[in-house]
């Protein structure tokens, strides 16, 4: 093996990006960033304005604002109309119910498809990969979760908008093949952390896995085969 500089090693490892970035997508993202900032500024102004009206905003019939940021047109005739901006909240583990849709196994590699139901009562969005851990004889294992690695879980994550009661899915793989003297560890349940969330939801599932072998795909709207 030839000696080589750290720069060469890192450059070789990175290789070529799989896709090119298009200017239109960058410009669209810049517009969204501008809208978010404008929305935050307008919302801050609205909060300041509401402060002057005190309890009036808390009376029955006053508009409710939960996780949505909704900025509508002003009711004051002389005030300039503002564009309505609605931010759909992200899907969180606390508003999700999960169960195993199917389990398939072959040659020591198990494939599990998981169904996630949006139980939050409102529409939410989800983008990315869930987190996972497994509960064994000695408690939570702290498994190392890897992304992708099989054709059906190597696609790029897309943002999915999930209506109340709607479903999304993800697939994970694990191996129970004993290698290098290590043995698989039995688990009696799993926890799943929705992307960008800090809390988990329980998943009823059992099996025996090599802790470093867990591979999963992004949350998707497409029901796995």
């Amino acid at each position, binding site marked *: 093996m030839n000696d080589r500089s750290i720069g060469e090693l890192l*450059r070789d490892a990175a290789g070529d*990006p799989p896709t090119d970035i298009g*200017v239109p997508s960058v410009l669209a*993202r810049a517009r969204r960033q501008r809208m978010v900032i404008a929305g935050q500024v307008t919302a801050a102004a609205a909060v300041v304005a509401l402060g002057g009206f005190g309890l009036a905003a808390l009376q029955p019939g006053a508009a409710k604002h939960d996780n949505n940021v909704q900025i509508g047109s002003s009711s004051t005739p002389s005030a300039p109309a503002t564009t309505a901006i609605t931010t759909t909240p992200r899907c969180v583990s606390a508003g999700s119910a999960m169960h195993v849709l199917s389990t398939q196994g072959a040659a020591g590699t198990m494939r599990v498809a998981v169904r996630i139901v949006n139980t939050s009562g409102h529409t939410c969005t989800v983008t990315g990969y869930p987190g996972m851990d497994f509960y064994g004889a000695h408690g939570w294992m702290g498994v190392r979760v890897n992304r992708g690695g099989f054709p059906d879980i190597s696609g790029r994550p897309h943002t999915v908008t999930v209506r109340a009661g709607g479903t999304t899915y993800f697939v994970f793989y694990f191996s129970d093949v004993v290698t290098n003297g290590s043995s698989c560890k039995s688990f009696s349940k799993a926890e799943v*952390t929705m992307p960008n969330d800090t809390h988990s939801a329980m998943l009823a599932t059992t099996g025996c896995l090599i802790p470093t072998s867990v591979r999963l795909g992004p949350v998707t709207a497409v029901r796995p085969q």
Partner: protein
Amino acid sequence: MSRDTQDAFAAFVASRQRGLQRTAWLLTGDWAAAEDLVQNALAKAWRRWDRVSSADDPDAYVRRVLVNEFASSWRRRWRGEIPTADLPERLGGDIADGAVMRVAVASALTRLTKRQRAVLVLRYVDDLPEAQVAAALGCAVGTVKSTGSKALARLREDPLLAGFHEGVRP
């Protein structure tokens, strides 16, 4: 923005985006996250393009935004995805040597601190002088030197990279 301005920005994106994506992959270890990071950095650069394009070094500006975005995304990282310390099991049969090396390097990088990773990538992959790395990271040149030295030492000792080099040198 005028048509000329858009054309200039498009030329900048076309010439820099692959290098930026490589840098972002080495920081994140994930192509999807890398593309997201680069798109965010470029979008922010576009919103201030008048100032960026007239700067002495537009590259340095964009890289600084990229690194800051990386630091922010790290702070937002959710629990559950744990950087792997070991090579994954070979589940799908043989994996090409290049892919193994890629996983090994990505895994080794995740065991560095985010600042160590950023210093290595900016200094040795993007070949930025120490002063520019310091400017991009918002720290002193001395910090860049010491951080880079510690990062290299950790990589030299990393068993994951043992098969891919005989002594990582700057």
